């Protein structure tokens, strides 16, 4: 939380103490995020979330970050229950391990909204809504982008590709890989996926993984990365090896670096997903639920395909 927020919180708390009437209408929403600072998507998400909350005078937010640690996130959920927040938004570090903690919140009567990446089905009974992107569709759309490109190039029957996945155990990573691996044989049955390795949502890790792939395989026609951050890492490795020309790079979650690489013609396509939309959708879902409105359980926001061909229709991502 920024110093400004803290200051404004201190002021508003003082105000609340002075006028009880105001206090009755203020809504407190707690959020525990996966790992702020690991990439610009999560950092922008946090900023957008705080900005959206500040713009609404009736809302106060407790913003926490689990730092990627499951145990710490469970502790934070318990702390938020203890603080008796009106609603809780969780960006799970592990879609399964948080289920018992989510049940505790449910038993305490606190509505839980899952954001960005969903928890496993066993926990659906304790969650009011999921707000976020449809990651399986994203993986499937990435497979379509890659297949269409190979068809245009006329290599749809011989192309060999590799995949760089996100952080192990993370639902988004698993779902995108699943969507991609299911859809690819349907649209391009003769394209071979030679190997998948985790790049941990990290550009340097992805670069190392790609360097190893380049040594291992003489012929790579395409790389699918779980997000553009890793995709650009892979691109850098291929550029250093002088082999980027022959490779079609497709990612997901279009980052500014990916957008720029597409503009330069080095990177082919991605999925456009805005963290600002993501954060605002999560907060709005929580507010709608508290207002007693009917909110669908899977509250997806749309994430369209973006390639070198149609990128003019999209603004450059801010992160």
């Amino acid at each position, binding site marked *: *939380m920024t110093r400004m927020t803290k200051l404004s919180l201190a002021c508003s708390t003082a105000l609340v103490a002075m006028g009880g009437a105001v206090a009755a209408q203020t809504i407190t929403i707690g959020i525990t995020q996966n790992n702020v600072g690991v990439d610009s998507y999560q950092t922008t998400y946090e900023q957008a979330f705080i900005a959206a909350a500040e713009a609404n005078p009736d809302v106060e937010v407790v913003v926490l*970050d689990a730092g990627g640690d499951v145990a710490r996130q469970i502790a934070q959920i318990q702390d938020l229950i203890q603080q*008796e927040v009106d609603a809780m938004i969780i960006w799970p*570090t592990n879609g399964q391990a948080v289920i*018992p903690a989510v049940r505790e919140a449910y038993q305490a009567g606190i509505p839980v909204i899952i954001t960005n990446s969903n928890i496993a089905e066993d926990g659906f009974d304790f969650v009011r809504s999921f707000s976020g992107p449809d990651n399986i569709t994203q993986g499937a759309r990435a497979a379509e982008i890659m297949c269409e490109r190979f068809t245009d190039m006329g290599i749809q029957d011989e192309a060999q590709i590799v995949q760089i996945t996100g952080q192990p155990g993370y639902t988004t990573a698993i779902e995108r890989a699943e969507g991609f691996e299911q859809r690819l044989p349907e649209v391009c049955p003769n394209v071979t996926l030679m190997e998948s390795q985790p790049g941990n949502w990290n550009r340097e890790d992805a670069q190392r993984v790609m360097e190893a792939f380049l040594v291992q395989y003489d012929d790579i026609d395409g790389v699918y990365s779980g997000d553009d951050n890793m995709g650009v890492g892979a691109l850098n490795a291929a550029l250093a090896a002088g082999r980027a020309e022959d490779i079609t790079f497709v990612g997901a979650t279009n980052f500014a670096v990916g957008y720029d690489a597409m503009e330069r013609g080095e990177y082919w396509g991605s999925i456009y997903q805005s963290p600002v939309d993501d954060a605002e959708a999560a907060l709005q879902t929580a507010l709608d639920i508290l207002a007693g409105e009917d909110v669908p359980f899977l509250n997806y926001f749309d994430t369209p395909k973006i390639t070198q061909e149609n990128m003019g229709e999209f603004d450059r991502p801010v992160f």
Partner: protein
Amino acid sequence: MQNETLKRLIKNGAIWAFIVIQLVFFEVAGRWWSLSDSAFMDLDNMLLLLKQSAPIGIIAIGMTVVMINGNIDLSVGATYALAGIVMLDSMNWPFMEAMGDAAIPLAWLFALFTGAILGLINGVIVWKTGVDAFIVTLGAMLGYRGLVFMYNGENPTYHLNWTMVDFAEADILGLQTPALVFIAVVLIVWLMMTRTVHGRNAYAIGDNREAAVNAGIRVGPHIVVNFVLIGFLAALSAVAFYSGSGSVNPNDGMLFELWAITAVVLGGTKLAGGRGSIIGTLGGVIAIQLLRKGLGHIGADTETVNLVIGTILIAVLFLDRQLNRKGAEELKV
């Protein structure tokens, strides 16, 4: 003489004084900055604190014993993850599934056994090769983590059993199971270190290994026992935590070794061995968790926690150094 008593008081009491300062600070600051109406020093909140301290706390208690010995164990985080995986995965085995809920205690036993075996491997290598424990367990840290990834690739290992979760969330006098396990471990190991021959030998070996050998202490087997103990405790920590969460990420437990060592050092245990206390480590563990919880309570940035703990760690080591100096440079009290 009075000086000596005062010094010892500062040494052993510093961590508790720090805890009291934190409590007062977060209570007062919480009135202004916290969005919550409930007090920070609420009884429920303090009981919750003990539960949240348990995963690293149980490991830190074992680490204290090993460090008093003059050794160190960097493989505890990987052991923790591997024990968790064995526990949850074993419940998916056909014969275990057939047993229903009766399989739960058996799964716990498998996990504890795994931890003890991994500890035994570390201990025997340290004993028989004479290679420094730092290097041996650094290798084990990488090796055991490799096993974690071999077990289930990059996927989480998952088995949600609500009976087990209910057991983990059950409470006696407001203390949930992990907190009770933590308290029991503190008590038992404290008794072991202060009331038994094994405990006294641990200090003797850490203080002066050669003298301990000359005094007829069988140093090798003694060290092995302590490594088995810390492996067992790392697995116990996994049992207490994963019973309540039901899913292990392959990179769970990373950096646990460093948090455990930090807690132990904060509690006044000497890195070189020979001195330290279980109760001091309990203080170190509580201080770290209190800081995390308190900074969250007043709405501060979560990253501040690491900065503050790092600063305090260096301050503690500096204080320790000053207190142990003799002569002109000695700390004046």
